[in-house]
């Protein structure tokens, strides 16, 4: 503690004004820099909104502030003093309460027990005290909960209320809400917004994470945008106050989805679209649950030689759409038509044989068997089919020959066809899987994030191949979270948000304007009718 005063003086004046400071914090996980040299200050009396796409590092930052993770580099400060939050209880003691993105309730316990969780084991539950405090919360914040209900039997919205109540009961100085409105009704979200404003008026600092830009503007006093772990921009209170909602949303979209300075421009490919319709989706819907979003009313037409891009923040139903098309996910309703034939009830294998191919984004877990040689992986989806199996017997020679051809044709860098596929780099696994999907008479190829996690050279080759596939007259559905990729390759771009198509825009090469328009739709800010071209 001898150097405490030293640390105080070394902090900037901006830091001293805030309750909590994050100073040059970096956090790495295997293969990814989740938070990259981020410095932020959270002030008393402010709702500070953190925005950013999925994977931008928001929750990791929350984890660091709540004592779940410790930064690899950089440090935190509390009221201008350097502080180490080595455990959740250290964070609670520092006056920081967190409502996490993922439920931190015990479903088998009652509401009361969940509210008292963490108390010494030998004590008796302080029922009367909690009940009295809940009365206060009810009066102040219109928050009421059935204390004796089993948490697992309540709705997800109610469960989120419990977590918010638990944080409020702690009388903390800082309240963190990580996507706390995701399960609330619009009315509930509005109430939460008012609650946050009340709390900051009483001197708290609130850190609020949301995906809804309008919420960010309405309830936030200050906005910071994270992009791939790094701070991409900040809007200070004065700036926000001087803007209308539309202006603010535009600015946020620019910060979140705008082209970074210095990124090379990608040339738009020439359309090879023909007139015949290959694939028709009518009103596809699937069941969602707590973990995966369902899709609703997806209608889309793919023409021969056409690339249709699917844009959207990761996790807005894109994967479910791809799986529904491939027959891997049951439909609640809707119809799939391939070359005029109804294939709605066709199995995965039947669809594949008819020419509908799906390249998953999960190359290792879903796309291949890592420990199997490349050769086996090239025929994984054709087990039992000629020419690789004859009369139920595997033909290893034939499979090996096929694999060698594929390795040569797709320039896979591998020692040989007997190498386990798990030993290859992501780009080379991707080439093998692409080769597999193009085998035989392909008509439509669905790509799910085909260049995700690849290096620049492999990204280029992959995009080149996707172009070539369209040139050959196949229809391509290209799901990607990379707007540059979509704008370089697609004829049209469908934007998904909340499991629905928000709009389909023609990729007319209008560059930045189109990009921002897509960005708005991705954030759920532009509605369907306006957007449909």
């Amino acid at each position, binding site marked *: 503690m001898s150097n405490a005063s030293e640390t105080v003086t070394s902090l900037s004046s901006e830091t001293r004004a805030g309750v909590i400071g994050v100073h040059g914090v970096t956090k790495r996980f295997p293969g990814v820099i989740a938070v990259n040299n981020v410095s932020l200050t959270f002030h008393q009396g402010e709702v500070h909104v953190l925005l950013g796409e999925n994977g931008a590092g928001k929750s990791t930052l929350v*984890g660091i502030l*709540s004592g*779940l*993770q410790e930064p690899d580099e950089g440090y935190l400060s509390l009221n201008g003093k350097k502080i180490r939050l080595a*455990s*959740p*209880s250290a964070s*609670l003691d520092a006056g920081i309460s*967190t409502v*996490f993105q993922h*439920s*931190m*309730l*015990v*479903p*088998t*316990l009652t509401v009361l*027990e*969940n509210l*008292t*969780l*963490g*108390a*010494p*084991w*030998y*004590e*008796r*539950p302080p029922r009367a005290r909690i009940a009295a405090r809940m009365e206060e919360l009810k009066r102040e914040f219109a928050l009421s909960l059935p204390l004796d209900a089993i948490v697992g039997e309540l709705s997800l919205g109610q469960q989120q209320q419990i977590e918010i109540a*638990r944080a409020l009961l702690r009388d903390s100085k800082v309240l963190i809400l990580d996507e706390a409105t995701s399960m609330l009704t619009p009315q509930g979200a509005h109430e939460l917004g008012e609650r946050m404003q009340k709390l900051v008026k009483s001197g708290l600092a609130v850190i609020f994470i949301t995906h809804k830009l309008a919420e960010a503007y309405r309830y936030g006093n200050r906005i910071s945008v994270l992009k791939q772990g790094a701070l991409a921009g900040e809007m200070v209170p004065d700036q926000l106050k001087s803007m209308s909602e539309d202006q603010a949303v535009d600015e946020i979209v620019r910060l979140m989805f705008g082209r970074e300075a210095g990124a090379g421009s990608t040339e738009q490919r020439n359309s090879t679209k023909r007139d015949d319709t290959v694939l028709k989706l009518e009103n596809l819907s699937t069941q969602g649950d707590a973990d995966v979003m369902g899709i609703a009313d997806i209608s889309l037409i793919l023409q021969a030689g056409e690339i249709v891009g699917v844009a959207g923040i990761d996790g807005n139903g894109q994967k479910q759409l791809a799986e529904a098309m491939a027959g891997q996910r049951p439909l609640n309703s809707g119809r799939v038509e391939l070359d005029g034939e109804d294939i709605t009830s066709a199995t995965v294998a039947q669809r594949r044989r008819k020419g509908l191919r799906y390249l998953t984004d999960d190359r290792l877990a879903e796309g291949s068997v890592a420990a199997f040689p490349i050769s086996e992986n090239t025929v994984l989806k054709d087990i039992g089919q000629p020419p690789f199996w004859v009369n139920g017997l595997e033909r290893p020679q034939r499979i090996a020959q096929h694999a060698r051809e594929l390795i040569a044709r797709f320039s896979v860098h591998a020692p040989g066809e007997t190498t386990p596929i798990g030993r290859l780099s992501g780009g080379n696994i991707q080439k093998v899987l692409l080769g597999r999907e193009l085998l035989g008479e392909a008509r439509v190829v669905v790509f799910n994030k085909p260049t995700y996690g690849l290096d620049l050279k492999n990204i280029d080759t992959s995009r080149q191949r996707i172009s070539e596939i369209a040139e050959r007259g196949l229809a391509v559905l290209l799901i990607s979270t990379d707007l540059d990729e979509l704008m370089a390759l697609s004829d049209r771009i469908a934007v998904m948000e909340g499991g629905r198509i928000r709009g389909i825009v023609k990729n007319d090469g209008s560059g930045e304007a189109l990009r921002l328009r897509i960005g708005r739709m991705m954030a759920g800010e532009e509605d369907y009718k306006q957007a449909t071209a």
Partner: protein
Amino acid sequence: MSGLLTEAFLSSLLTGAIVAAIPILLAGLGEQMSEKAGVLNIGIEGMMLMGAYVGFLVAFETNSLWLGFLGGILGGVLTAIVMAVLCVRLGLNQIVIGIGLTLGVEGLTALLHHFQFSRTYPRLPAPERLNIPGLTDLPVIGPSLFGRHLIVYLALIAVVVLAYLYRRTNLGMTLSAAGERPAALDVAGGNVLGIRVVAVLFTGAMAGLGGAYLANIGAGLFIPFMTGGAGFIGIVLAMLARGRPLWVLIGSLIFGAALSLTTALQVAGSNIPTDVIQMLPFAAVMLVLVLFGRRAKLPAALGAAYERGAR
């Protein structure tokens, strides 16, 4: 089969049931706490055997049954420390370590016993019994229910005390949280690893006491491998009892009756083949598992090590 319903037969059946029930009751109560907290404590068989060995040795050397029980608890706890360090602190696989621990203790105690006593099995003097004038003299139930060693009644009190702690204090909810969703307990400021260590050590203490009872009261001597699966029956009981100590008691009495029926039938000299009789308790285990196994509701994080911040 005419002699089956005699007073002697019924009395020995009841006595046997209680004597056989107490060790698995203690083991079941102990295992229950571990499982509530999310640790599947397969090592309990080893803890019990260690308790039997140490408990017998202490009682034999000091001539005090009570010191013997203390020794049993100590033996169980020492074995449980290994489990707590490896499985809770270091997060190693609970099944592998549990089985290893049991096998290790089986070998170790057999070896040590052989060194000390070679091939002899010295006996302890018969334990002093409770004597409640009036009650103990009742026919059939008198000696079996009211003439047992004091430790039997302490085991029954433990059922009540645990039921109270689980229901009325934060202990039950803290254990459940550690077993259902440890991350939730962690972020609420609770100590997941701490409560799990406590639970595992408690299991060791209870299993060790059960083992000491088995050796010092049940048999009056130590024989290598003498627990013979009693710890595993405790695991089954804990899994079926859905967190309720009273259900462990009921279950242990049923299994105890099945176990004692084997001896009672043999003593009564019935003409059922001995092999069939000895199958009885295990048939009972199977039957109960078939009937109620599906109703066992286990904690969501049972068997999974907790590591903060991992996903």
